[in-house]
Every structure is written in structure tokens, then in C-alpha cells.
């Protein structure tokens, strides 16, 4: 039976908001927090609500099952608990790391991290040592590493408060001002009017010296005045680096979901925009996903909830095409388990495909050494579609038979787009659509060549734009090895080609197909 419970992982505003909204929808939840959960528990909607189970100091240790039927194990008070949930939402907060070392500074009472700038107690006599009697506060941001609009907004808010309410002269020293957030350009202009001084560096960087008496001196060449300038701030504030929560690595391992180059969850892939991961029913929101504003975190939380509601209201979403394992032939090599990008293979009792998790990419079927996996229904697969090829092409005629195998996420849409734009595509091309090029096996290709096909062009998504993440990479590796075998049987390897295309490129689709046809025409018939 399908569970109607959600597991939220995280302690912070995003997790709290998620919990609140889900409770409003009357959905049952469990929240697992890796620390003491103080932020979460303090959140009003949760404090006053007893329907959510909260476990603190937990560590997720296992996950099996699929959307609607996840079984999650976690440790809590030296015990392993198991819960059954339909979805998991990860909403761990960032780790903030002040960039002291980037600027060659050590934290002292007058060199502070950004988080403390809001709690600064300004003592008016502090500034008396300065020549003009004003306290000077310098913010350093984005000088060694690119910053982001989230940090810039915090700095501007903090500087604005100090400048307008505490008679402080503030300076913001930066390289690229990360103004690409809603309302920031306006805030920047207003903050300049209050007297905040922005100093931007391009090629050069200021020399930052922390004296023995802990005073900081910032020496730089002023581009406007064209002379060296020295700033001696009473307080120096360094910006923060927003890092992924250290727990995300473990979650990525346990849930077998992708992680990006910076350690945030979700692959950097446009098919994963909003909250989706490579595994159905495991969602990632807000600060576990990328650096973005609080409002965007909340948007994410709401998007996640809509995904869940959507799932609950609909009949089972099963893909039209799914894989099926013939248990009798399976040799338990676990290739399918390792390669399935959507984690749809279950190892409980036998090796089986969890139907509601399978996206039908066919990678497992193409790679299974025991040929134990079939795609169902097979009529919609390559086999089914290539049956018609005999009818479409008469081997006796002198017309060339050319097949384009088009990935339905990209090339097939590009073809449709070409047709909508009324762009001419060469006549006499047989198009086979596949859910993912990763499912094209060597056998498929050889079967087509046996049917006297003169050329096969495989068109996949671009690398890092594959819905099944690795489908196009598998396809490329396979094509390269098949090409070697083609040579061995005396076929020109140029008769099999692979190229990548995006779904919005109709003209390019037509151009690629025409180019391929011309190349095959030069080679002549393979018959």
C-alpha cells in the first residue's frame, strides 16, 4: 500500500516552512534533523503543532523502495528507526564560512564575520582616533572569489543600517557587484545616496595588512583620484562563503542522487530545475540545491509541495515504457543496479525493476550482459519501430535507406520544431524515436544493418542535458565500440554516426540529417 507520509530532512527556515505548509494540507510528516533542531522547534507553526514527529540528532543510514513506498532508516539515540514514506524532501541549510583567510586576515574584535555585523554595538567614542571623528567600517566582498546577490543584499542592508542609524562611514570593497537580485540595483543607488562608498577593483586588488596592534590597513590605487589611497577602518567585515551543508554528501550516497561540482544536491542539469532529482519522489529544495534568496527558497518549498499534491491526486504515474527483468536469465551481476540513473532497480529478494520508478531509458536493457532485460511494451521500442523499416525500404530498389534514431527528449522535438517551421528535411529518412539514446544496444544497430540499412544517425541530447543523466554518454561509448566491429565486417564506419542536438534547434536538425544523407550518398549503397 502506498504511504501518505513525507519525510523532511533539515533544520531551518526552509524545512520549517515546508512542514508548516504540508501540515496545512493535512499531510502527515516526519522531520529528521541532524543537529538539535533548535531553529525548527522554535518555529511557531511547529511548536504549537503536535501532528509532526520530530527526530533530532539523526543520521540517515538507508533507503530502499521508490516513490510512494520508500523505506528509510535512520539512527537516533543509538537506535535504528525505520519509517515508510511516499516522498523525501531535503531542505538542509547552508554552512556559512567567513572568508577571513581569503583576505589574509585573522578574526579579532575589529575583524568580524558578516553575520555579526547586524549585532554590532557602536560606541560613538570609537571613532575619536580617526581624523574626521567618524567610525569607519569596511566590508570586503567578492575580492578573491566571486560572490552572489544573496551576500550582497546582506551587506547592503547591514551597511545601510550602520550608515543611516549609527553615524558610521561605511565602505564596500568589491570586484563585481552582484546586483542580479530583485530590487538590488535600486537599493544600491539608494545606499550610495546615504553616503556608503563603493570601491570596485578590476584587475588589481587592495593590499590588506593586519598590524600587530590588530589595526587593519587597506592600501589601494584609487582609479578615480589616480593616486594611492589608504583606508584604516575601525572595523573590517569579511563576507561569507555559502557552502552546502556537510550532511549532503551522505544523503547523496544513501539516496543515490546526484551532487553538483560544488557539493549541492541535484545534478547541474536543466531537467532537474525546480525540486526534482534523478530519483522520483526524492525532492531537493532551497539551500540544499543552490545559493538563492529566502524568497526563492520558499518558492522551492511550495513547488515541492505542489509536486506531492499532484502525485497524491493522480492515478499511478507509470511510464509508457518500462524495463522488465526475466529473473530466470538474470545472473545477478548488478550491472543494472549500478547503471540505472533513476535508481529503479530493487535488490530485495530478486533483482527487479520498480515500475513506478522506471523512466524507461533502456540503459539497463542495453547493458545487461545476460540479455535478461526487455523493454515493455516492445512494440514502441526500437524493435517494434524497425520492423516497419523492411516495408518502408525495398532492398531491391536503388534508393538509399537511411535511419535516424532520435532521442524523444531532444532530437524528436527538434524534428517537430523543424516541421512546424516548415523547414525541409530530406525525403526518405526513416525516423525511429527512443525514450533515451542510452537504450540503443549493439544488437539494435546490427539488426538494422542486417536489414540493409545504408546509414544510421543517432541523435541524442547534449552532454549534461540528458534526462537520464548518462544516457547520451553510454550511447557514445557504445557507438565507438560498434564502429570497430563494423570495420571488421567490412562496413565503412562512417555509416554509423552520433551527434547531439537540443530540442529547440529545428534548422540544425534538418541540416544534420541532410549532411548525413549526403555523406551516405557519397559512400553509396551498402547492399
Amino acid at each position, binding site marked *: 500500500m502506498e504511504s501518505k507520509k513525507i519525510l523532511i530532512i533539515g533544520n531551518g527556515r526552509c524545512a520549517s516552512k515546508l512542514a508548516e505548509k504540508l501540515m496545512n494540507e493535512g499531510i502527515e510528516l516526519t522531520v529528521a534533523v541532524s543537529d538539535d533542531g533548535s531553529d525548527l522547534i522554535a518555529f511557531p507553526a511547529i511548536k504549537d503543532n503536535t501532528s509532526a514527529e520530530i527526530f533530532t540528532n539523526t543520521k540517515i543510514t538507508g533507503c530502499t523502495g521508490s516513490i510512494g513506498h520508500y523505506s528509510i532508516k535512520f539512527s537516533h539515540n543509538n537506535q535504528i528507526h525505520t519509517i515508510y514514506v511516499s516522498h523525501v524532501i531535503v531542505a538542509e541549510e547552508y554552512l556559512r564560512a567567513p572568508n577571513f583567510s581569503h583576505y589574509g586576515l585573522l578574526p579579532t574584535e575589529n575583524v568580524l564575520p558578516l553575520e555579526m555585523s547586524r549585532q554590532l554595538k557602536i560606541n560613538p567614542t570609537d571613532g575619536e582616533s580617526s581624523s574626521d571623528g567618524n567610525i569607519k567600517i569596511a566590508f570586503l566582498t567578492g575580492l578573491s572569489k566571486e560572490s552572489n546577490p544573496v551576500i550582497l543584499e546582506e551587506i547592503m542592508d547591514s551597511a545601510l543600517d550602520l550608515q543611516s542609524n549609527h553615524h558610521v562611514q561605511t565602505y564596500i570593497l568589491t570586484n*563585481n557587484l552582484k*546586483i542580479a537580485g530583485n530590487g538590488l540595483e535600486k537599493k544600491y543607488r539608494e545606499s550610495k545616496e546615504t553616503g556608503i562608498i563603493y570601491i570596485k577593483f*578590476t584587475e588589481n586588488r587592495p593590499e590588506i595588512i593586519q598590524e600587530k596592534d590588530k589595526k587593519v590597513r587597506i592600501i589601494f590605487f584609487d582609479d578615480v583620484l589616480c593616486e594611492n589611497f589608504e583606508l584604516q577602518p575601525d572595523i573590517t567585515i569579511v563576507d561569507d562563503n555559502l557552502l552546502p551543508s556537510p550532511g549532503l554528501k551522505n544523503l547523496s550516497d544513501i539516496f543515490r542522487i546526484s551532487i553538483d561540482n560544488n557539493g549541492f544536491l541535484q545534478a547541474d542539469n*536543466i531537467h532537474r*530545475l525546480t525540486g526534482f532529482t534523478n530519483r522520483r519522489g526524492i525532492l531537493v529544495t532551497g539551500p540544499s540545491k543552490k545559493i538563492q534568496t529566502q524568497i526563492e527558497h520558499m518558492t522551492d518549498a511550495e513547488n515541492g509541495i505542489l509536486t506531492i499534491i499532484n502525485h497524491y491526486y493522480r492515478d499511478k504515474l507509470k511510464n509508457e515504457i518500462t524495463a522488465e527483468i526475466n529473473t530466470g536469465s538474470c545472473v545477478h551481476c548488478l550491472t543494472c543496479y549500478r547503471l540505472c540513473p533513476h535508481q529503479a532497480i530493487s535488490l530485495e529478494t530478486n533483482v527487479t525493476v520498480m515500475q513506478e520508478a522506471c523512466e524507461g531509458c533502456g540503459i539497463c536493457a542495453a547493458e545487461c550482459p545476460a540479455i535478461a532485460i526487455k523493454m515493455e511494451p516492445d512494440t514502441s521500442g526500437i524493435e517494434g519501430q524497425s520492423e516497419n523499416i523492411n516495408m518502408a525500404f525495398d532492398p531491391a530498389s536503388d534508393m538509399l535507406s537511411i535511419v535516424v534514431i532520435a532521442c524523444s527528449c531532444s532530437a524528436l*522535438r527538434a524534428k517537430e520544431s523543424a516541421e512546424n517551421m516548415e523547414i525541409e528535411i530530406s525525403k526518405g529518412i526513416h525516423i525511429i524515436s527512443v525514450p533515451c539514446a542510452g537504450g540503443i544496444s549493439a544488437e539494435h544497430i546490427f539488426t538494422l544493418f542486417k536489414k540493409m540499412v545504408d546509414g544510421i544517425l543517432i541523435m541524442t541530447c547534449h552532454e549534461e542535458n540528458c534526462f537520464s543523466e548518462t544516457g547520451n554518454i553510454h550511447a557514445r561509448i557504445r557507438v565507438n565500440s560498434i564502429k570497430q566491429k563494423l570495420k571488421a565486417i567490412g562496413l565503412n564506419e562512417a555509416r554509423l554516426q552520433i551527434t547531439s542536438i*537540443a530540442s529547440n534547434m529545428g534548422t540544425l536538425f534538418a541540416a544534420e540529417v541532410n549532411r548525413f544523407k549526403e555523406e551516405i550518398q557519397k559512400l553509396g549503397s551498402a547492399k
Partner: protein
Amino acid sequence: MERMIDQNVIILGGGITGLTAASELAHLGYHVEIIEKSESIGGHAVRLTCKATEKCVKCGACKVDEKIQIAHSHININIHMGCTLTGIKNGERISVYYRNQQDRKSSSNAEAVIIATGFHPFNPETKPYGYDRFKNVITSLELEKRIKEHNDIKKPSDLTPPEKIAFVQCVGSRDSSLNHLWCSKICCPSSLRMAHLIQTKQPGADISFFYIDFQNCGKDYQQFQTTIHKNFRTIRAIPGDILQTKNNHLEVSFFDPVDHKAKEEIFDLVVLSVGITPNQGNRDLSEKLGINLTEFGFFDTHNQTGMTSKAGIFAAGTACHPMGIEESLSSGIKTAFRVVEYLKNGK
């Protein structure tokens, strides 16, 4: 079997924002009617080209084709092409009146309306860059179109590949003389990716950027940034003006921030990175709907909540703020969620 709910949501504008909201609501079982001004759906995103080089660079442009397909095929979605709103009346339900280009009038009743009418790319004619006079001064949107339709980069004057190209950033954005006090957010990422594509297609191309600040481009910007500084010349200045010299070459004058001198330099193609500005029709539409605009002329949604000043009327996407495709998608979904909440609780 699809669930059916006897409630209707009208979406003004079938760009990526409107289509995303439509598909979410339709999946949940609501009836959705899209009122689209032009003769096709997809909005600006369908005009953008793919900028993948050896890998996808995550511009998001190809995401729209999927949404278009859903909108055309979903039984709960009805599209009225070539139609504009003429007025609304609040009663038991919201009555929405519209007419098509042949002036045929129609009306529909709905429980909620989402404004997703998008943006207007800045028209640079008023800037001293000779956009309307010199053939080889083009906008970033025109360059997108060229590559999408012809798969190559050519100078409009003689259809030969340009050798020396300048990108001018922030055209129509961050400009106090126009009172455009916003960053469009998309023109840095888009032009940086475009320049990267040009260099891949045409390895010798000499590319310069005139800019104020570079904004982050995608999830892995730090890495991309390193590439940029290796491959493109960056000049931190916005050009004063552009003149045409012989052979349709362009003389760009600017104040060099390194030498502190005014300079002129010759380019053979200048690309103006035009920003996102509010639609001219926003004022009229807001009056018809009885809702507020922000001081800059976008639809006001109370600190980005998706709700306007009038119950039952929501706004999403670039109609409210400058934003890219990814944010437009989330904005569309979020607003769909707000509509669902409203129809359950508020009604």
C-alpha cells in the same frame, strides 16, 4: 483517468511562465484557458538558440518545447490564440472578456486569473549606438535568432563572419537616465554563453565585453568565470557612442579605465545586450483589471508573493520582475500553488 475539478483558471500570456502554470493546474484537474496575444505560444524563450558547445551550458531555452507540447496536448488546457483582453467583471465568478484579431468578441468565466504577459526586450534606438542606422549594430535577441535559424554568425552588412566583435552590456538596464533601476539578470549569463559559443564555432574570433559588473552565470559560475577571463577581453566601461566608418566598420568610443584615457576602437560587429523592460501594455491591462503596477511598470505582487492587489488575480514571471527561464518556471509553479491554496481556502 484525469481528475476533473469544475473550476476554471484563465492565464493571460502563453510564454514559459504561463505554460508552466497551465500545465501544473491542468495536471491537478483544473480547467485552464490561455489567452495569448500572438499567433503562437512559447513567448520569448522560443526565439532563443541553443548555446551548447561540447556540453550543454544550461541556458534553459530548450525547456520551453516540452511545455509547448504539454499545452497543446493536455485535454484540460484550451488556448485562444491571437486574443487580447478587453475587460473583466467581478461577480459570482470572474468574467473575462476578450477579442481576437478579427475583432470577434468572446468571454469566459473563471475562479482565478494569472497574468503572465511577460516582458518587452529593450529597444535601443534611443541610445547613441546607431542601432537603427548601422547594419552591424544588432541586439542580442537578433543574434539569437540568426544562430537559431541559420546556425552561423554573420555580419548583416555583407553576410561574412565577423572577426572583431564587441558585446555592450546593460543596454536598457541599470540606467538612471531611463529610470531603469534594475538589473535584467539574464543578459550577463546569456551574452557570456553566446560569446563562448561564437568562439567555439569560429575559433579566431576576437571578442570584447564592455561591462559594469559581471553577474553569475549558472550553478558553476566560478569555473565559467575562469574561462571568460582567459578567452575574452573585458573592458569595464560603457561606451559613449558608436559611429560608422568605411566598410560598415564601427568605431566605439569609451573611457579606458586602465589608462584613464578616452579611446576609440574599431569593431566589425557590435552586439547590444538588451535588457528586460515592462510591456508597454501593462498600464492599460492593470487599469482594466483594477490592479497596481510597481514604480517601474511591472505588475506588483506584494513582495513577490504572486498575489496582486485584487483577490483572485495573480501575476507571475517576467511580468513582475526581470528573470531568466529557471526563475520563470518556478514562478509559474509557485503561482499555480497560490491559486490552488486560494481556491481551496479563499473561496
